[in-house]
């Protein structure tokens, strides 16, 4: 993987609005900062190589290198990436019913991991008004304040960088696919820093088709509802095709077709629906809004899942074959769409420092063959 510096990152990713605002480059240095969902490059940094570039999930991503590092296997372009097991999951008896999205598996796993000491801090995303605000949570009960979907991109990894700089260790992170990719890149110590240590202990990846541009979403809602009255936002599974905004007194619905206009361009370049480079990935189970799909990918992920199940923090069931096939179909579609977009814009295997990602011809062909054109899957951040 070729690593460049901040100026190249700004040129290739930020100025072209390819930035998803994941926060991987934030709080490492004084040059990048996140503000209202967008990443700003404040001053020119002249370093030829920087962690900002190396961590960015939107430039020079090498899925094969990541796959070999995390799973000791080559990247083969499978719609769901590498996995050990796939389950139907939900929060278990040890978890009191909380206002969480779908089956509550993510919150339950984080809650368990903090209680059990598997992790000593969790990087989660809360909300200030509509603005997603990433935070370090060290008390298990703190997990519940962050349990609802945000639907907009959040600079979650800025909080991870801050926590690491402050000396926190054994951190758990709830990440979107782009964030999970960034974390995997961080864990590879790309700048070969001698004092580097991996301070993540668990990365829970979310399924994601897209996340909304915060500024556009806020402006959209501000024109339609009193922002201060918003209690919760939800996108129920199909065939609803609406975004629900729960206010103090009422519920308002907006057609998803209108909402999709607020999706930033960058999501169109994404090949990853299921957070393939996380330890475990969680999403909604198609047709069962109260249940989750859980993909276990790494050994450390597997250990935590098994222990959480044993101690009844989560309940696992077998994944019906038709559900898995549907998930593969949806994920394969996203992969193919993202890949085509990269190819059309010269961002697959392009000039050094400007490519989104690098894939072999063989893997490219496999993805293009696997994916089927069809309607968009209803899974979201």
């Amino acid at each position, binding site marked *: 993987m070729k690593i460049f510096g901040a100026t190249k990152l700004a040129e290739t990713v930020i100025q072209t609005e390819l930035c998803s605002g994941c926060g991987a480059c934030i709080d490492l*240095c*004084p*040059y990048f*900062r996140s503000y209202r969902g967008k990443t*700003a490059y*404040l*001053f020119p940094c002249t*370093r030829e190589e920087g962690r900002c570039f190396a961590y960015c999930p939107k430039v020079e991503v090498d899925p094969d290198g990541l796959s070999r590092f995390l799973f000791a296997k080559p990247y083969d372009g499978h719609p769901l990436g590498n996995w050990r097991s796939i389950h139907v999951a939900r929060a278990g008896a040890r978890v009191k019913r909380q206002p969480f999205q779908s089956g509550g598996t993510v919150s339950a796993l984080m809650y368990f991991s903090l209680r059990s000491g598997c992790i000593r801090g969790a990087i989660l995303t809360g909300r200030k008004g509509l603005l997603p605000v990433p935070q370090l949570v060290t008390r298990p009960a703190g997990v519940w304040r962050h349990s609802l979907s945000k639907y907009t991109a959040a600079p979650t990894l800025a909080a991870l960088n801050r926590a690491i700089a402050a000396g926190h260790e054994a951190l758990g992170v709830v990440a979107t696919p782009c964030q999970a990719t960034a974390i995997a890149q961080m864990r590879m110590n790309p700048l070969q820093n001698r004092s580097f240590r991996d301070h993540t202990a668990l990365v829970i990846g979310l399924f994601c088709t897209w996340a909304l541009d915060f500024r556009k979403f806020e402006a959209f809602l501000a024109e339609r509802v009193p922002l201060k009255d918003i209690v919760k936002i939800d996108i129920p599974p199909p065939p609803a095709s609406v975004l629900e905004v729960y206010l103090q007194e009422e519920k308002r619905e907006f057609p998803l077709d209108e909402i999709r206009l607020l999706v930033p361009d960058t999501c169109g370049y994404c090949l990853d629906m299921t957070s393939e480079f996380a330890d475990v990935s969680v999403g909604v189970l198609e047709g069962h809004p109260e249940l989750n799909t859980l993909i276990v990918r790494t050994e450390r992920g597997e250990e935590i899942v098994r222990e959480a199940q044993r101690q009844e923090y989560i309940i696992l069931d077998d994944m019906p074959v038709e559900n898995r096939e549907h998930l593969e179909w949806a994920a394969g579609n996203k992969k193919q769409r993202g890949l085509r977009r990269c190819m059309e814009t010269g961002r697959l295997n392009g000039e050094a420092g400007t490519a989104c990602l690098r894939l072999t011809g063989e893997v490219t062909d496999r993805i293009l063959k696997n994916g089927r054109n069809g309607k968009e899957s209803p899974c979201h951040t």
Partner: protein
Amino acid sequence: MSYLIDEGKNASHLLMGNEAIVRGALEAGINVAAGYPGTPSSEIIECFSQVAKERNLYVEWSTNEKVAVEVAAAASFAGLRSLCVMKQNGVNVASDFLLHLASSGTRGGMILVTCDDPGALSSVNEGESRLFAQLLEIPLLEPGDFQEAKDIIPWAFDLSEKIRNIVMVRSVTRLSHASGNVHFGPLPTRVAKAEFRNSGPLLDPETGPMIAMIVGAPEAQHGPQQEKMKRAAEIFETCPFNTYTGPATPELLIITSSACSLYSQEAVSILGLGERVGILKLATTWPLPQRLLKKHLAATPKILFVEEVAPTLEDHVKVVAAESGAEIGVKTFFGKKSGHLPSLGELNPDLVLMALSRIFAVPYEGAPADFSAAVKALAARYAPPRGMTFCPGCPHRASYWSINNALKLDGRGGFVCGDIGCYVMGTMAAGFNTCKTLHAMGSGSGIASGFGKLKQFGVDQPVLSVCGDSTFFHAAMPALANAIHQRSPFTMLLMDNRGTAMTGFQPHPGSPTNVLGEATPALDMEKICRAMGAKVEVSDPFDLEKTRQKLNHLMEYADGAKVLILRRACALSPERRGKKEYEVTVDESRCRGEDCGCNRICTRIFGCPGLIWDGEKKVSRIDEIICVGCGVCADICPAGAILRKEVA
């Protein structure tokens, strides 16, 4: 007691040109002086203020140059002698009133002193004020040395009273700011008694109202004004300050004025051309003394014009030569238009030497071509490599830091319209290149007001303007009024550093004291802006994060004009000078240096001269000698390596 009012017989002092002008005015019995600060003119009002009590003067720093001329004009209308002073750019500001004043005429002697800045050493341009004399139809005098700078002032007052109009006296940086020996004359003892007589007939120059308004009848005032100029031209024929040195029939006649006459003398002397070249030094450069010129033109076949900035003398003398062609014959001219002298920048003896050596084919080894390169190389060995920047502890650096960050975080491509003050460096790395326009005093806010109204054409990014406290009163208030009235959604950053800092802390209407140090009402900018209808916030620029937050908030507030007052005294101001708030040190073990995670943000970007990069140890250090202890750098260090301890 100031040496400026030394009454000793045969007294002489080493005076700056500006001081000589003041002494001249004192000898002429001046009563009122007003001006607006601007290099190289600022010392004149300051010198008057030092002797105001002893000489019973009224002296003020006016809100702007136009007001300064108006204040001085009132004194003249009341029969007093008055002087107004400004740098060349100020004449542009004052020109509207000046045009009307030249029409109504004056009563007591009145002088406009303009100090031009050839080479734009401390200006945003090298504007030429001499052309105003032609435009305004008023006489122009240019003293050629320090003695003349004093002597010409009483003569100018007399001239003003003879023709009943304002007289312009032009100096340049090298006259205003250089020093020479000046022999003093006596100071008058008369006590001034003023009266504005206004009950006489409309056009009566002694007793009528002073009015520049004879609609549809130009002959009523313009005619007499032209007569005044004819009188002045006649007087100029025998002006004692027009001098000629050289042979009766020189091979070449140099026509020059002001500091250039000194360069000419030196060049002729060095080349030993005293027998072949004559120097006609003109003090009366508008209107030109035609007969005097004709006499000298007739005596030579070749003429070289030595003057700075515009070829003003060159053009006007050529007209005289053309008109008298039948009498004086065909001449060969050298100067800016022939390419013998440069058309921009300051002149110096060397440039005149080279022009002469070309004309006479006299070999002259000027400074070797690699001389300036050698000087620079030598200087680089001892001087740190440093661009133009703000002083250590300057609030502007902190302000621009926050402005840059707010604009970048906002991310909509917003920009700043710059203005005149030390903060012009917002166009440079010192101010993180945030300013994208820069013109005249107050223009940043006017331009921003305009940009704010271009949304319908697709220009919809945030627009900011910067404006100093003195500039606010000088010319930015009308721009802000415009923006508020037109609902232009721009944000004015009022950088209130408690005085007219760039020119030396002259007071302005927001100051609690006047030029004499007496208590005066200080106008409250915050209340003014609020009363005008702007949304106003105040911040201490040294509080980087709060300032940034307030600015982002104001930029996001779309409706109408907003003002963020950034209040912190200039580091060189009397109230901060010599007082360290913090003792600042660097913990070298924590400094990240050039590593990923910092890359020298303090020395490479923030750029306070008080921070030094130790290239050997690869860490930053504090230059204790010049650090003023503002402590702001502690907030920009990402590693917490810069430590500040409050000074007890």
